């Protein structure tokens, strides 16, 4: 069973933006959509490792700042015609606090 850890409040992530959590397995990007949903992906683009947290968030996806791939939050897949997968982490929102499964 994974452990839920509090990482920040929703307010601390900009709407349509992201924050980064340092972790042993590599940085994790926490995204917030315009509808105030939160998603977490490995902060590493499947293309050439660009930091996804630094990209522009729109809808349920982020555009990588390096070469413009789009990665989907719900499954970590690159939007076609690009092909690639980015690992996804469980996050949950409770009373305005963001929890990450570690």
């Amino acid at each position: 069973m994974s452990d839920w850890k509090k990482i920040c409040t929703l307010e601390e992530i900009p709407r349509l933006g992201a924050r980064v959590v340092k972790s042993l397995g590599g940085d994790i990007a926490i995204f917030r959509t315009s509808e105030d949903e939160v998603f977490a992906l490995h902060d590493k683009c499947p293309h050439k490792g660009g930091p996804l947290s630094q990209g522009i968030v729109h809808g349920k996806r982020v555009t990588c700042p390096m070469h413009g791939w789009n990665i989907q939050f719900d499954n970590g897949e690159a939007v076609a015609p690009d092909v690639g997968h980015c690992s996804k982490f469980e996050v949950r929102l409770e009373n305005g606090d963001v929890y990450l499964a570690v």
Partner: protein
Amino acid sequence: MSKPKLVMVGNGMAGVRTLEELFKIAPEMYDVTIFGAEPHPNYNRILLSPVLAGEMQVQDIILNDHDWYRENKINLHLGKKVVKIDRVRREVISEDGSVEPYDRLLLATGSTPFMLPIPGNDLPGVIGYRDIADTDAMIDAAKTHKHAVVIGGGLLGLEAANGLKLRGMDVTVVHIGPWLLERQLDEVAGRMLQKSLEDRGLKFLLEKHTEALIGGESGRVAAIRFKDGMQIPADLVVMAAGIRPNYALAESAGIYCNRGIVVNDTMQTYDPKIYSVGECVSHRGIAYGLVAPLFEQAKVCANHLANYGIGRYTGSVTSTKLKVTGIDLFSAGDYMGGKGTEEIVLNDPAGGVYKKLVIKDNKLVGGVLYGDTADGPWYFQLLKDGKDIHEIRDHLLFGQSTVGDVGHQGQSKAAAMSDDAEVCGCNGVTKGTIVQAIKAKGLFTLDEVKKHTKAASSCGSCSGLCEQILASTLGGAYQATASDKKPMCGCTDHSHEDVRRVIREKKLTSVPDVISFMEWKTPDGCDKCRPALNYYLISTWPHLVKDDPQSRFINERAHANIQKDGTFSVVPRMWGGLTTPNELRAIADAAEKYKVPTVKVTGGQRIDLLGVKKDDLPKMWADLSAAGMVSGHAYGKSIRTVKTCVGAEHCRFGTQKSMDLGVKLEKMLFGMWSPHKVKLAVSGCPRNCAEAGIKDIGVIGVDSGYEIYVAGNGGIKTEVAEFLCKVGSDEEVMEVSGAFLQLYREEAWYLDRTCHYVQRVGLEYIKSKIVEDAEGRKALYNRLLDSLKGIKDPWAERVEGELKREFEMLAVQPV
């Protein structure tokens, strides 16, 4: 509730494209049923010519396979012709008697080959050239028969003739006109084309009137006889003497037709429930026979089917290419010229090159290129944009590469490039890969090529080349849209021009307001439109609109340039390229303290600290700030540098104090955001050591004052700055420069450098606003100064407070 029913008759290129456009904007709106008379899913009819020539196979040209129909839940009837439309009961009836009710009907029945009304036109072995069945019939005939006659020396006829010849037949083209392709070419080009086709073994009979086709013993056609009595053997006759819009079905249902199904600008027929697109349509009296205009119709039609109600189709200018491998031919617009027009002609029969451009009122209105068509798309764009060519007239005929282009945009000729030649230097994409993708994936636009191959998706300098490749692979199917009508991005159909206007007129003040007011198709826009919207908002309503960091590319959000490894670079401002021992010491200290791996002098006369970790940025900035240094904005669509030479302060030739003026200009413009980056230079004399000739604004000191040049660019495509005016004092330089930049800030489209903007509006326009209109100039200048009032150093702002959060990492907290 059940969905409204959309029935489409005709499963061809225009109709299916309409559905694709519809699914993009309103995917779940209708229950869709399609009737197609052919037994195939939608294929690329254009590529029947390469199939006949043996260069491609039928399976290569399928555009939408059966999976596509299934995924979109389309009820597909193949091999079923619709024979009746009952408009009262709103039903269509197909030949097998099945009845399908509709709420909206889309007629996309295309056209049929015109069969000459002569005796023998129904003999076996006499066919048109329209579909896969015709192509197969030709391929079979070539295996067993010898003599082919093609009636009609137009594009279709020549492509058929070329294919049959390649398949080993003895081919004669019979043409009624005085030269080949008389609807696309003038006589000189027509004769050159005939010569090179004759060199390939084709025979031609011009100005010949066919009288009858004569059957042989087997019942199959055996000969063709002309009015002058001449007779030649023919065991395959291909009629390519024109097409007739296929409107019999519509007409029989009482829908108004006049040499085509008559539609209005929203692609509606006289029955508002019935829409029509494609070759069957007559729009403002014109029936088009090339796919590019049909695709424009498809887009507008989809928009109305989706009840968006904004698009209008107002007609198209078309261009054509002959798809015979090894022969380059391009024509567009009014190529014949005539009263009120002028012509520029290059005729080199020995070199096999002929070019003719037709000009009217300083605008390109048509052209014919033979032998060297690399510049076709460029001319076509100039033509569609209605651009004033007065200033480039001297070079126009010699092509895009001679009007200031040293990049790899025009100088390589797409058609002549080998398949392994690299087209996109940024992403390492070869010509072969692009051609392959265009054919295999059915790509039609530059955007699609960008998405699928990545070519032209980085610096964009090869977009011209990619457009050439598209044009040469697709033939006339490729069509550039007029730049001022191009949608901003896939999220909207509105152009940059529209968006800027609406923001101003409707006083929109936030990105979400624009997105909802202008009915974006996506909830929050994308990485292309949001930065543009943010810029348009802050430049239209300075001090009123709040900047939106999440709509900025990371470099502008973090006020530093992201590196390939995710670290950042820091470039402190050195006003006019000047620095002090104190500043250099602070830079050296910072470099040591934050373990900066690389320190480099930039091309913009200052120092770059490369490889800084994001969370170190605010600390480093605080240190630099303490030494009086501010951001160099090396990362922004903003003022970058004002490059200076030493000038009259030290140089023996200096006529003006260039360092001093450079620093004043840079201080005036500090913190200015703009559609793209802005660079200035001031040189103290015409030796021009600060390279003012390739800057957005270049100032050159002369004994009596300053010469001001604008719209230069030293980047992807070098552009030499153009002379704007001469002034006497520093204050005047500041006013002219400020006014010019403000005009650019207010009118240019996002990501246009000053050179692109000035090319679009013309230097004469700039002069009328900046040089001739003193009051207007002052007003512009004051608006610039007003919007820059109170600008703070973005670094200092981020050292403390709310904005610092961008640079802080989160940690897992104990619960």
